Structures are given as structure tokens and as C-alpha cells.
């Protein structure tokens, strides 16, 4: 089943008189259950592609489908609704709300989705266990290490059981052991829950976890193939980029 589909998408940013083409006619399909890395140097268009799949941004041309629905023409509130119900985000910086505890940060998407207190309690506790942070549930972000914060972010992204988790450089601000722990957590949750992960990175240590690696350069996909992770299946073999 297709979780996300990008059809001939371009994205151009205009800053003053200067136009920057971040993506140039990209096609990509993400199937349910994938653990896919978007790789490429800085400025290659990885983050832009994630933002478009994540309904945070809209394409200049082309179409973006999430769960079969065309999201390229949705208005602001419709995109917010789509994100709330379908997509979870993990960011490079430890994107937690500093005034909320780990528990409350994980609970926030459930609140936004109008879940009952009992449902919230059950889901948050499940997620705290899943990321091994039960003992830190009442700690605020400044009382957690970088790795712990990122695991809270993972739990928060997964708590609503979304169809798709998008992670932008999830280990960029972590040391090697913590980066490893975060990636192993993501792999485990992907295997346990079947949730689709797409993450942008240029860290070779992270890329090795991917079962599919999509490489971008200058706004086009230059390769799309199997990653190095053991037991993976090749999801797409042909490069899809269109210059």
C-alpha cells in the first residue's frame, strides 16, 4: 500500500529576486512499512522533500499524495488536520516543548486528536515503555540527555499510531552511542509496529540502518535502491530523479 506518492514535484524558493530550485520534478513512492533513508549532501533537497511529504509545505508544481489523498492543494487547516492524524515528525534539534514533561510532550498529539484521558494514559505509558523512558516520564527536557530527548520525540511521533514517521537528521545532534540507540529504537519500532519511517540524513552510520536508500543531488533523485540493513527487501531499484 502506498503511504506517500510524489508525482513530478518541483519546489522553488524565491528570496528577493533570487530563485532557488530545491526540487526539480521528483517522483517517489513510499510503501507502507518501509524504513527509507533520503540521503545527499546539504542543499540536495532532502529536507524539502520531507516537508512536502509531511504537508508542512506545498509544491510549486506536481502532486503529493499521502494515504492516497492529494495534499498539494489543501489549505492551511486541512494540512494541519492531515498532519495531526497521519504523520509524525522527528526533528534534528530535540523538538520538545521545554515547559512540558516527557510524559506531557508525548501526550500532546493525543490531546490535539481529542483522545480521552484513559486512552491518553494508556498510549503514553506504552510509548514510554517502548522507548525505555518510563523512569524519566516526569522529567522536563532540560533534565534529559540529548539521546533521551530524541527518544521522547520518537515516542511522541509514534503515539498517535500514524501511517508515516518523517525524521529529519534524527541523529545529527547526538554522539555515536546515543545516535546508535536512537536508530536502533526506530528500527525496532518499525519492525514491531510496521509504521513507515522516512528519514533524511547524510551520516553514513545512520544510512546503514536503512532498507531503502534514496539519494538526492541538486534537487533530483540520482539513485534509489536497497540499503545495507540486513534482511531488507529492495523497494525500488530504478533512479527516479528527473533533472
Amino acid at each position, binding site marked *: 500500500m502506498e503511504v506517500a506518492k510524489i508525482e513530478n514535484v518541483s519546489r522553488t524558493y524565491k528570496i528577493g529576486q533570487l530563485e532557488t530550485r530545491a526540487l526539480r520534478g521528483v517522483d517517489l513512492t513510499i510503501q507502507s512499512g518501509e524504513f527509507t533513508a533520503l540521503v545527499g549532501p546539504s542543499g540536495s533537497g532532502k529536507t524539502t522533500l520531507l*516537508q512536502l511529504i*509531511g504537508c*508542512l*509545505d506545498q509544491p510549486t508544481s506536481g502532486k503529493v499524495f499521502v494515504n492516497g489523498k492529494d495534499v498539494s492543494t489543501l489549505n*492551511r*487547516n486541512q494540512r*494541519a*488536520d*492531515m*498532519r*495531526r*492524524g497521519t504523520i509524525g*515528525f522527528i*526533528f534534528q*534539534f530535540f*523538538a*520538545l*516543548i*521545554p*515547559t*512540558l514533561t516527557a510524559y*506531557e510532550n508525548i501526550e*500532546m*498529539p493525543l*490531546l*490535539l*486528536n481529542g483522545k480521552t484521558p484513559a486512552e491518553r494514559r494508556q498510549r503514553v505509558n506504552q510509548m514510554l515503555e517502548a522507548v525505555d523512558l518510563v523512569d524519566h516520564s516526569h522529567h522536563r527536557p532540560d533534565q534529559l540527555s540529548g539521546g533521551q530527548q530524541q527518544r521522547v520525540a520518537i515516542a*511522541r511521533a509514534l503515539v498517535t499510531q500514524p501511517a508515516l514517521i518523517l525524521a529529519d537528521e534524527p541523529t545529527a545532534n547526538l554522539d555515536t552511542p546515543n545516535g546508535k540507540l536512537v536508530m536502533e529504537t526506530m528500527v525496532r519500532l518499525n519492525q514491531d509496529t510496521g509504521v513507515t519511517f522516512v528519514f533524511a540524513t547524510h551520516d553514513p552510520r545512520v544510512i546503514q540502518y536503512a532498507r531503502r536508500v534514496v539519494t538526492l543531488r541538486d534537487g533530483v533523485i540520482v539513485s534509489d535502491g536497497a540499503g545495507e540493513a540486513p534482511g531488507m527487501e529492495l523497494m525500488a531499484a530504478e533512479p527516479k530523479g528527473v533533472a
Partner: protein
Amino acid sequence: MIQLIKMAFRDLGRNRRRTFFSALALGLGLALLLLIAAVIQGELRTSMDLTIKLQTGHLQVRAKTYEADKSSLAWEDLVAEPEAAAAQIAALAPVKAATPRLFASGIVAVGDETAGVSIIGIDPASEANAPYRDGMVSGEFLAADDRQGVLIGRSLAELLNLKAGDQIVLLVNTANGDVDEQPFTIRGTFATGSPFYDQTTLFMPLTKAQTITRTEGYASTIFVLLNDRDQTEAVTSALKSSQYEVVTWQEMNQLLTQINQMSSGFMVVIYLIVLGITATVIVNTLVMAVFERTREIGILSAMGMRGNRIMAMFFTESTLLAVGGILIGLVLGGIMVAYATYVGFYVGNFGIEGMLIGERIYAYLTLTDAVTLIITAFIVSLLAALYPALLAARMEPVAALHSGD
């Protein structure tokens, strides 16, 4: 909702000093407005009470042709057989006191010093004279049959360096247009609380006043005090006659009524200025909060929080800030208003014709003023949050997420 309040509360706690000073700004503004409203209200009430008690009474019965500002002594402008009329009026249940009074203008002369005065002939036994009798600061009150004695106010005594027992010469306009001149003895001095009144008023027994002004058997007015101001209309209707007119305290104190109305408009302007300044502080605080939390707004937006909910977050913060500010305002304002109510402010001799002002101003805070101010401060605080809330709600998630990169 509880989560929203919890979040807002914690967000305000991030920069406690800034939050405290913002709430303090609102509190000080509110406290200041409570004090101003209470002082103006208190002054107007005191002034009205003083003017009614000393100058106009609740009602006056007088000849239709009588002009109060001219203190006319022509017989056709006066009330004939005033004692009988006063007794009749006093028999009405709502009437506390009814007494004839004669007004004339004159000049007090002591050596080379002179001072213009309003001479009032009173029935010394009347209950309506209580403010003067109770306000005696030296000497004795007048007796009805006293043909030589007068009372003067403390301010006039100080001005002319007089005391009880001293002699003065009084020049008085009479009914036939002449000026009569007679020596009098000061029996005592009084203080009513209005230095202006005390400096310009001289009392003598009604019979003596009638004699000296050639108006025997007449009075300028029947001065009526009621048990309750609200009975004015009923008593006015009961006293309607073809010969005389009944003038109410509202009609006699139009200047005060106008000042009262003007002060309401003036207060609105003051409200707007003070609360406008306060609103600026709140806007500044919340705009700073929006900029400091741009990335968090981006995160919440990425999680699917809609713009209206982001706005609600800032409105909740503003509401909490307003509640804190209002509580501070009520405490500070309460202390200031309590001081002004029980101790008052000394303003000295400050009054004009037609409006008596006491030498001390006492505040009087009405529930309506207090509630109006609290609600206005609250609404202004919420309005102040509108711009920052819109700013936050309209942020593009992508731009917000990458702020500070």
C-alpha cells in the same frame, strides 16, 4: 482546556520577572484607575452632600420671581409668612426639617479690612442648622432673640484676624435699595468643612436679618431637608402651589450635575490612556514570547495544531496575565482607595460658587466603577493578545521550524 491553562501557566513562568512586571504594569494601571474613579466619585458625592447640607437643601420653596444669584430682597420676590409655611411643610412625613431663610449680600468691615459676605438669616432653633451648630469652633451659637450677634466662618475670621467677642461693622443691602450699616458682635466661629463657604458666609437670626434688610415678615426661601433624597419628587408634587415654586436639589445644583457628567467622559479618556499604556506592555511581552517560541510554534503546528488553537494558547496566557494583573491591581488599588476613603487628601480652600468642596477629599468607590474597571482591564488585556496571537497563528510551519537556524 485544563492542559491549555497548564501550558500557558508554565509558559508565563519561563520568564518570571518579565511576567511579573507585565502583570504589575496592569496592576498599577488598574490601581491608579480605581483610585482616580474613587476620588472623583467621592469628591462629587461629598461636594453634592455638602452643597445640599449647607447651601441648597433638598428642596426650596420660593417666590416664582425669586432669583437666587441676585439675592433679591424685593417683597414680591420673597415668601410671605414664612414661619407658617415652614411649619406646614415640616408636618410632612418625609421632611426632616423646613426652615425659613433670608439671603442678603453685605460687606464686613474691620478697621481698614473688608470682605464681601453672603448674609443668611436663620431660625437658630431649626434642625437644619446642625452643620453650623456642630461645626462651632469658638464662641456660642446664635439665640433667636439676639439682636447684636452674628456667626462667621473660621476662614473669614482668619482672613480678618477676628475672634469670638470682636466687633465688626456690617454693611447690608436693604429691600428699598439702600445700604444699612450696623455694628455687630461675633458670637462665635464655625467650620463646615468647606473653607470657601466659611469665608463667604455670615449668619444672624432671621428676625434681625429681616429688620436690617427691611423685610419683616418675609424670607427668601423655605429651606427643606428630607429624610431621604429619593423622596424629592414625591414631596415636590405634594408642595406644588400656584403662588410659589418648588425647586429641587438637582435643579439648584446643575453645575455639579454637569461636572458629574463631564467627569464620566473624562474618566473614559483616562481609562483609555492608562489601559492603552498597559496594553502596550502586554503586547510587548507576548510578542517577545512569540518570537522566543517561534520554533515551538512550528513544532506544535507540525503536530497538527490549528491556527485557532495556537491563538487560544496566547489568549490563555493573556487571560492568566490579566487575572494576575487584576489581582495585583485590586490589592494595590484597595490599599490606596482605603487610605483615600478613611484618611482622605487635604486640598485646602478650593471651591467655587455653586459647588462646595470640602477641605479634605475622601474617596468613594462604587461597585459599578470597580466592576466596570475590572472588566475593562480584562477586555483590554485580551485585545492586547490579539496581535501576538495572530502573529503566532499565521506563522508558516516550515519557517517557524527553521527559525534560529
